[in-house]
Every structure is written in structure tokens, then in C-alpha cells.
């Protein structure tokens, strides 16, 4: 398994500002991802965080709005830029450990973001 620590757990931010969310894993993992869970809705994949290179974004998500870094195999950050109330969501980090052969994803506890 993998123990995932996300920071902050929640935040209230002013519109127009940016927030960086951190994801730390207790072991080296092959893949890291960022998901968004909008209020009352399901989870949507934002992007795959690639170590040492640019993240791979899903349709509808762009790097300028959600820049992602992954400097090593255990750490990634997601920044929500120029925030608006529509960005109010739970943002979750997800990882796939090597031992799970791409068959199981683990999730952090999420960052609950409210934009006012």
C-alpha cells in the first residue's frame, strides 16, 4: 500500500489568488495523478504528474490553470491559479505503487478548497 499526505487539508481563498497543494507519498511510486471532485459530483482526472517532465493533462484542463510539478518519485504539487468560485472543489492526489502492477490506485485525504 501507500500512505499519502496532502497539504493543506482545507483552505478558503480569495478569488484571483493561487493555491499550491502538496502530495507526499511514503514510498516510491510509478505514477501520480490529480483528481478534482466538485461539490456533489464525482471525481474527474485532471492530469498525470510525470517525474521530471511536463504533466499530461486531460481534456478540459490546461497547464496555465493547473500547473503541476513532480520533482521526484514521492512528491508532487498542484497549483490552482487565478481562482474563481467555480474552482471550489476537493482536490485529490492519487498514486499507483509499483507493487500493485497498475491495478490499484490509492488516494490521499484530499484538499477541500473554497474560493470566495
Amino acid at each position, binding site marked *: 500500500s501507500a500512505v499519502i499526505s496532502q497539504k493543506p487539508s482545507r483552505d478558503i481563498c480569495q478569488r484571483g489568488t493561487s493555491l499550491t497543494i502538496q502530495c507526499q507519498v511514503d514510498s516510491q511510486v510509478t505514477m501520480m495523478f490529480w483528481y478534482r471532485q466538485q461539490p456533489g*459530483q*464525482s*471525481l474527474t482526472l485532471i492530469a498525470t504528474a510525470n517525474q521530471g517532465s511536463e504533466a499530461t493533462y486531460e481534456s478540459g484542463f490546461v497547464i496555465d490553470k493547473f500547473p503541476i510539478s513532480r520533482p521526484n518519485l514521492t512528491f508532487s504539487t498542484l497549483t490552482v491559479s487565478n481562482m474563481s468560485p467555480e474552482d471550489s472543489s476537493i482536490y*485529490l492526489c492519487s498514486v*499507483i505503487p509499483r507493487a500493485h*502492477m497498475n*491495478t490499484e*490506485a490509492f488516494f490521499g485525504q484530499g484538499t477541500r478548497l473554497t474560493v470566495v
Partner: protein
Amino acid sequence: AQSVTQLDSQVPVFEEAPVELRCNYSSSVSVYLFWYVQYPNQGLQLLLKYLSGSTLVKGINGFEAEFNKSQTSFHLRKPSVHISDTAEYFCAVSHPVQGAQKLVFGQGTRLTINP
């Protein structure tokens, strides 16, 4: 493209009663199927997964699910629920080639257990 439909947004059940949470998926190819649980103010925890083989899958906390290819369903069941089972449950599908990399989630079912 794959999609998942969870037919019930909310399911209220009395304690110790059985429960079934329904999940249907749409895919033209073989799939991996997952059920995750999200307790209040927590992340997602895997309950069980179907990759191949036996269509009846047993998971943690007494849950099980049955893969039905002809009906494209993967319903989650528990014979007797407890107050602690109150949570949001998500069904998810992925393509075996991509595995757990690109999970497509359903809308979620909120299970409420009443004493």
C-alpha cells in the same frame, strides 16, 4: 469511451438490513471495475476490484460485488450493514491497458444507515 452510471444517488437503509448499490458501465471492450468508499472528510479507500476470473468479488468490510458482463453491471452488496458503513460509494471503470491510471468514476451513491 467508457462511462459509469450509479443508478441511485442516495440509499437509506436500516441497520443490519441488506443493501445493494447499483452500478452499470458502458464499454465496448473488456474492463477493470472498482468500488471505492469515501467516509466523511476522508479520501477514497478501495473496497474491491474486478480484473478477471471469478465474477463474484469479495472485498473488505463484508462487501462483495458481482460482475455481470451481459448486463454490464457491477453491483455492490452487503448482507447486513452497520452504522459505520455510512459513506459515499463510488463505482469506477478503466481499460485493462491503462489499468488504474485512468479511472472513470460514477456519480456516487450516498449510503445512510439508520438505527
